[in-house]
Structure formats: C-alpha cells, structure tokens
C-alpha cells in the first residue's frame, strides 16, 4: 500500500509546491524526481510482497478489510505504469509546462490519477473499483480543460464531464443490480451458481458495467466522446489519457471479468463480442478519413481498444499476459508518437511531409512507433496482437472476431503508413514547434529500443511476474 499512499501524498505535495514555487521548469524536475521515487517504492513493495507471498503461500496480501488485494502480478503492472508515467513526463514535460499557468497542479492531478490506477488494479471490492475509476476520471476532466484560453479545450472538458457523469451513473446502476443479486461487493465472494431467478439481475448488472467500462475505454457505441475530447484536450494530456489511463482501465476490468464474472462468460461474452466488432470497424474505418494526425490517433486508440477487448472476452491466463504486453507495447509506441507529434507545428498529415529529410532521427523513431502500432513483426505491436489473438483462439468461441480483427489490422496499416509516406516520400519543409533536445533523442531512443526488445523477447516482460 506504500505506493498508493505515496502517490496521493506526492500529489498533495505538488499542490503545496504550486503555492510557493514560481519557476515552471522546477515543477517538472520535482515531478520527475517524485515519479522516479514512486517507481522505486513500487519495486520495493513488489519485492516485499513477493517475499510475503512465498512464505504464506496465499494468493495475495489483503488490505483495508479485504477491500484491496495485492499480488506480484498487479504490483508489477503498477510498477510498469509508474515507469511509463516517468517516461511520459520525461518526453512531454516541455509541453506540459506550456499548457497553462498551473503546472504544479497538472502534475498533482497526474499523481492523483496514478493513485486511481493503483486502486483500479488492486481492488477486491466493487466499491474500490468505483473509487479508482472516479479518482482517475475526475482529474482527467480537469486536465482536458486545462488550456483555458482555448475554446476547444473547454468544450472537450465539458463534453467529457457530461458524458462521463452519464456513464458513471450506469456503472453505479450495474453495481447496484449486482449487489441486489449477490448481497456483497467483495468480488471473491461472488457466487453465481445459486442465484436462481436473480441471475437476470446479475447479468443485467454485468452488462451495464460492460457499457460503462466500454465508455471509459472508448469502445463503440460509447466512443463518441473520444475524438472530440482527444482532439480538443492539450496534446500532452491526450497522450496520457490515451495510453496509461486507458490500459489501466483495461487491466482493472480484466481482473474483475477474469476473477469474478468468468463463470457467467456465456451470458456476457456475446455482448462484449458485438461491442468489440463495432469498435474495430468504427475505429479503423473512421481513422482512414482523418486529415489530422492527432485525430487519427484518437481513432487509432479506439481501434487498438478493439484489440484489447479480445483479452476481456477471453478472460484466460493468456489474456492476462497479453494485456500486460499490449499495455506496454501500445503505451510506448503511442507515447513516442505523441512526443513526436507534440514537436510539430502542424498536426495534419501534410505537416509531416518531408520530415525524414529535415529531422531523420525524429522521423525514424516515429516510423518505428507506427510500424509497431500497425503490428509489423519484430516490433512490440506484433507480439501484443499475437497474444490477444492467441488468447481469443484459446477461448475458442469467437474465431469470426479474430478474422475481423486481422482484416481491420490490415486497414490500420493504411492510415499508419500514410504518416510514414508523408515523412519519407513527400517533399516539404515541416516546421517544428519546439527544438529536439538531446534528452528527447535519448528518450525516443529508449522507446524505440523497447519497441524492438518487446517485439523480439516479449517474455522479458512476463518473466518478472
């Protein structure tokens, strides 16, 4: 529980710092130090928990009256998320500093979101799940509107908040129905076998939860907010929302579907299958038509969510491994791409014309990230998709979805490669909004190395569990 407490404390610390410190750069340095510290605390906690688990031979260590359960798997996920956030701030801190005046508050909100992620990944009780989701969502509403002078940003914030509130209502409704059927919030005590006529309550509750969850991860037909919000929000925060936050929600939902709802898989898998199919189709087809790379990435995040939904449908051991690989692979590639995007003045495809000539390093890194997102072998994205498909095939009931997924992956190549084409085969003089520093190059290099390392040795990530 140390990381949870630490991240909440760090958030408060940042807010107090905002009262006294005026220099923007010092906030970033401070945040980077705290994030590194937080990652360290996570590793410490992981090591300690491992030791405790190996001695007491139980499935996990419980906190807060069994409301939170930690084990090596979810702590490892938390560690990865903290490390990714560190990478994210390293890549984006210049952009974060430029969003507005309240730099300290932005970082504080990021720490609060991290607390939400920790709750989300370790909950053992639906109330904690709800708490985690809200702790993650409310700072995001603020971050989306943080560029106050920009009308689009305010619009994004308001839209996100309105629709988010709507989906929260649905989530609570689903939980209430589940409680009505099961008389408990503790997911380890869920027992669907003796429900009798109450089963319908439970199933309706699960479906409502699926819908609310679908909203959070922007699955169709609950995806409408995504393009507007991602496009309107300041680019560095879009990057955060589209990657770390999103995969954390997937992780949380996978654990509830896998550990609690799996016995009823026959009832909800079809609903989820339809959602997945719609998400894949709408995400990919709409992305084809976009003119702005930022908006394309919004749709791409919908399309990628379609693939991650495979894991929830399958809810097996392969899916757990897969979501971990996918989370890191997708986050690293998308963060890297957003970091490149944030350097550009013009976010349209034409803005990237000729980038390979003027900034070969930037273009090469972006090309690697795009290849990974498209799922080209030897990159992390390929292994991630492989795990998802393998999980679904192991489950055995949704082969048509696998085929659809592969077809849509082919479509995705079109819009990802359009950027590569612009960078390498078109003439133009792209303008950068910010200069590329050595630190940027090193961090992008780390991202590229991660993409290849995971693409060749995905087990590296899994062997740490």
């Amino acid at each position, binding site marked *: 529980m140390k990381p949870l407490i630490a991240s909440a404390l760090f958030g408060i610390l940042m807010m107090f710092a905002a009262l006294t410190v005026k220099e923007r750069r010092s906030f970033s340095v401070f945040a980077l130090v705290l994030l590194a510290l937080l990652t360290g605390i996570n590793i410490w906690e992981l090591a300690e928990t491992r030791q405790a688990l190996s001695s007491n031979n139980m499935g996990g260590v419980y906190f807060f009256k069994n409301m939170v359960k930690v084990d090596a798997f979810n702590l490892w996920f938390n560690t990865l998320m903290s490390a990714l956030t560190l990478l994210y701030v390293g890549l984006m801190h210049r952009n974060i500093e430029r969003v507005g005046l309240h730099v300290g508050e932005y970082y504080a909100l990021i720490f609060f979101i991290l607390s939400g992620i920790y709750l989300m990944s370790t909950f053992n009780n639906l109330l904690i799940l709800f708490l985690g989701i809200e702790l993650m969502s409310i700072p995001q509403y603020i971050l989306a509107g943080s560029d106050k002078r920009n009308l689009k940003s305010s619009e994004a914030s308001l*839209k996100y908040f*309105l*629709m988010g509130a*709507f989906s929260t209502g*649905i989530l609570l409704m689903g939980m209430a129905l589940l409680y009505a059927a099961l008389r408990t919030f503790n997911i380890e005590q869920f027992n669907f076998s003796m429900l009798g006529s109450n*089963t*319908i309550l439970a*199933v*309706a509750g699960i*479906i*409502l939860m*699926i*819908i609310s969850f679908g*909203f959070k991860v922007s699955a*169709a*037909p*609950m995806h*409408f*907010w995504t*393009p*507007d919000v991602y496009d309107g929000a300041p680019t560095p925060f879009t990057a955060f929302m589209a990657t770390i936050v999103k995969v954390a929600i997937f992780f949380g939902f996978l654990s509830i579907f896998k550990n609690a709802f799996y016995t009823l898989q026959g*009832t*909800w898998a*079809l*609903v989820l299958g*339809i*959602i997945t199919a719609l998400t894949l*189709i*709408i995400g990919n*087809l*709409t*992305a*084809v*038509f976009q003119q702005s790379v930022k908006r394309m990435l919004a749709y791409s995040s919908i399309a990628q969510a379609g693939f991650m939904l495979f894991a929830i449908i399958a809810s097996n051991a392969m899916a757990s491994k897969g979501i971990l690989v996918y989370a890191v692979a997708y986050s690293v590639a998308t963060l890297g791409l957003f970091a490149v995007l944030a350097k550009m003045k013009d976010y349209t495809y034409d803005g990237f014309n000729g980038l390979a000539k003027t900034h070969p390093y930037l273009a090469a890194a972006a090309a690697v990230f795009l290849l990974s997102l498209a799922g080209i072998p030897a990159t992390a994205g390929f292994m991630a998709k492989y795990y998802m498909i393998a999980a679904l095939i192991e489950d055995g009931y949704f082969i048509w979805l696998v085929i659809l997924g592969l077809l849509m992956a082919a*479509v995705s190549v*079109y819009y990802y490669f359009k950027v590569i084409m612009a960078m390498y085969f078109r003439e133009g003089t792209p303008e950068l909004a910010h200069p590329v520093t050595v630190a940027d190059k090193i961090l992008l290099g780390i991202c590229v190395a991660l993409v290849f390392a995971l693409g060749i*040795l995905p*087990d590296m990530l899994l062997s740490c569990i």
Partner: protein
Amino acid sequence: MTQLVYLVPLLPLIGFLINGLLWKSMPRKTAGILASGVMLLAFALSVGIFFEVKNNPGYGTVVTLFDFIQSGALSLPFAFQVDELSSLFLLIITGIGFLIHLYSTAYMHDDPGYVKYFAYLNFFVFSMLLLVLGANYAIMFIGWEGVGLASYLLIGFWFKNKDYTNASKKAFIMNRIGDLGFLVGMFLVIYHFGTLAYSDLFMQFADGVPANVSQGVINAICICFFIGAMGKSAQIPLYTWLPDAMAGPTPVSALIHAATMVTAGIYMIARSNIMYNLAPLAQNMIAIIGIATVLLAASIAIKQNDIKKVLAYSTVSQLGYMFLALGVGAYVGAIFHVMTHAFFKALLFLGSGSVIHAMGGEQDMKFMGGLGRKMKITQFTFLIGCLAIAGVPMFSGFFSKDEILAAAYMKSPVLYALGIAGAMMTAFYMFRAYFLTFTGAFRGTHEQEHHLHESPAAMTIPLIVLAVLAVVGGYVGLPAVITENHLLGRYLSPVVTNNLASGHLSHSTEWVLMGISVAAVALMIFLAYSTTKKGTFKEPSGLGKVLANKWYVDEIYNALIVKPLKHISLLLDRYVERCGIDGIVNGVGRLVQWSGGKIRLLQNGQVGVYIFGMVLGIILLLIVGLLFL
C-alpha cells in the same frame, strides 16, 4: 571459455552494427581496423574454445542464451552447440575470415563504399557463425538466411553495374530454391520428431530408425536437407550462381568460396551424419550428384580464360568431392577437405586478387603472362595453392582428396575412377591458369606492364600465412598407410564418425590407389605446361566450344525454366492479377473509404446526439444480452 561462446558471433555483429549504422561518418581507417579487430578477437576466442574442447573429448555442450520460440509442444531455445565439429568450423571461419578482412583493408582501399563493405563483411561472418553454432536447425536456418542475404549484398556490392546486380539476384534466387528444401525438411522433422534440437533429434536415432517413422520419411528429410545444401554449396542443378558470384570484390569471393557460405551445406550434412547414416537412398543421391558436379565443373574450368571463373568452377568441383565423401559416408574426409580447401582456395583467390590488383582490374588470362617476374610472393604462394589443389603429395590437398578417393573406392571403383578423372582435370586447369598467368611473355598493354607491382604487405601477409597452412594443413589427417593415428578423425570422433562401405583397405591397395592419382596428376601438370607454353589462344571448337560455353547450362535453364515461368507470370499478371485480384482489392479499398466517409458523419459534435447513440446502443445490447441468457 565455452560459456563465452556467444561472444564469438557477437563481436562481428557489433562490428557490423557500428560500421553499418555509422557508415556515413565513420573514418575509413577506423572502420577497417574495427572490422578486422573484432575478427581477430573472435579468432582468439575460437582458439581458446577449440583447445578447451580438444582437451576434453566428448565435452560437447549446449550453451542456452534465452528462449527463442515457445509454441505448444515445440520449444526452440536460442542455444549454441559447442563441440568438436562446431569449434573446428569456428577456427576456419574466424581465422580465414580475419585474414580476408586484413587483405580487404588494402584491396578495397580506394573504394567509396569502404565502410559499408566492412559492415557487410562482418555481417557475413556473423551469419556464418550463427549457422555453425546453432544448437538446433532453426538457429542454423537463421544463419543460413543471413549468409544468403550477406552474399546478395556483397556480390552486388558494385551495384551500378547491371550484370553484377543480376549475378547477386541469381545467387539469392538459387539459394532461395534450396532454402525451400531446407524449410520443408525442417517442417518434416518437427512433424515427425517434435524437435529441432540436434541432441534431442539424434537421440531418437540411437537405435537405428525409430519405430514410429518409416525409412521413407528419413530419406525424404535427408533429401530435403540436401536440396538446401545444393543451393548453398552449389551442386548440380543449383550451382550456376557460384561462378556468377565472381561479380563481387575478390576478397568476398574468397570468403564465399573458402571460409563461409559454400561450406554450409557440408556442415549441415556432417552435423546430421547420424540421420544420413539411416538414409541410404539420400546418401547414394548425394554421392552421384557430388561426382557429377566434380566432372561437370572441372570440365568447364578447363576452357575458361577468366582467372576468377577458373577458380569458381574449381570450387564447385571441389565441393563435389566433399559431397562425394558425404555420400559414401566419409564424413571426416569431407570435413578434412573443407578445411584444406579453405586454406588453398582462400590462398588462390587472394592470390588472383593480388594479380587483378596489379593488372588494374583485368581478369582475362589472355592478357596476362610472365607476372611472376614482378610478383614473386604472389607467384610463389599461388604455386603452392595450385600444388595443394592439384593433389601433389606432401601438400594438404593431396591428403584430403586421397582420403575421399579411397573411401569412394570402397563404395565402388567406378566412383573412384570418375574421381580420378576429376582430379586430373583439376590438375590441368589449375596449372594451365598458373602457367598462363605467371610464366611466358606478358600479353597485356604496355601501360599495364609498366603498372605491374607486388601488392602491399596487408595483402601478401595473408597470402604467406595461407600458403603455410596450405602446405601443413594436411598433416592432421595422414592416410592409414603411414599412420593409424588420424588426428582429425580422432578429434571429431565424439560427434562425427565415418560410416564406410567396407572396413579397411589393405595397405597395398591404398599404395596403388595413391600411386595412380600421383601419376595422373603429374601427367596433367606436364600436359598443362606443354599446351600453354606458346601462350596463344585459338577460338575453341567442337567439345571445346561446348565447354567454353559451360555446357550451355545457363541457356538451357533459361529456355526450360526461366522463359516458361516468365510467360506464365505475364499471363497471370495480365488476366488474374489486373482483372481479378486488383479489382477485388481496389473494390475493398473503395468500400472501406466509402464506409469510412459515412461513419464519420456520426461524429457531428453534438453531445445530445452522442448520448442518444449511446442509449440506443445500451438498449440494443441489453436486449441481446438478456435474450441470449
């Protein structure tokens, strides 16, 4: 020491990465030193490993680096096999590889692609090391493909010349045909035996053919592997790429012909000797194709005037001997010949490079002659190479070739007789080349004559080292008539043992066989001297013309395979591709664009519409979910 084996391929890989990534900014001198330096280090390590293995017979061990592929029941670790066979090959590859790198620093001195060249060269060696070190066929295959790629890059190194790029394409395609055989063989192995690891696989052959598979399966696997070997090691019918591969810089030819690439097929079959012992059909096939290649290539070499072409065909023909040895079960003899051949063929190629260097790029022997007066070291070392390859007693080639011929005799005297015929042709064409190049009067232009000079030390030192090796290399495998202690055979015995047709030749027979071959060789050297004495070239006619035109094999392939294939693909392109597939693909593309355009309209920016869409979706999903309850 053996635990450090991963460093051996890693070093050239590092060299490749540094030179390859920084080729624009790398100073030329540093690039050459780096590339040669990593090779020297790798060689030093190989020596250490070799002696460690040698001092602990049967010590063979598998060094696992990491899990490469885990899929169902199939597990492919990324592992290296360190044993007598692979450590011997390590020595050959890194040792000769180093000499060739050193030589290249001088030979390629003025080439604009200098850094790139060394990057490729390092990559070539890296792939070859992977090939021989892999502890399963999959790792071997990675190296196998890497070697193919590297050879493609290096043969077409001077890619501005269209003929050269064609030669590199030819090499690549011919190799790919063979690779397909290798791949099919691997799949058969996985299917029938469930593993690709040498140790697991060969364990299943410990008591002959396993009960659950038939003899036919093993024959099929062995033949498939052999098809792979045909491509890499240039045997009939896939040999035509090797003579064309001369397009690359001469040191590359030396590398391809001596230390790497072409020995891959021999290595693969020697490695699988336990399996091949159970496949008599495949073995017979190998022996027959081997001897046929010996004769075909040697006969072509007789009439070639390009010095590198002569050497190229001689490689094909010598490889034929190695396959003959494999086919008759003389695995040790084949490896022995790989080793001696590596010495003298590298020597000959580098020597020819020295000649070409001096002649300012001229390769045609018509315009050479008398070069020995200006290039004493090159002449002398080249002569040693000729003596070795021709099989003159006391030189290395004599011992290895003799061992193969004796083994062939045990199988069938016919094979022996054909082998002797090949040896005679070898002696003839090699000495013809020697006399035409180094003796007589100079036939080139005055300008060339003025330019003639001995090559720099970086080129002559490798020549001298190789010449020494070409002389003494044979003494590790003295024939049974002299001593029963066959050093190489004893060294290899834990991994490779001969499986000959009959146990032993009587000493008297062996003496007679040796006598015959020595006499035949001596006769042919004399013949070569007398035919080249005048130094005139007349237009070949009759059989000579057929030979000069390489039996028209390229033309026959063109007419029988390339042209019909081209016609078929043109037809497919015109009708199936343009009308059928293109139509479908473009149709799908248009459908995607059209539907994308429509779906996009849903996104109109109104929160009310969004929420309405969501509610509609929720209701439908609830209905679906509860209906299917």
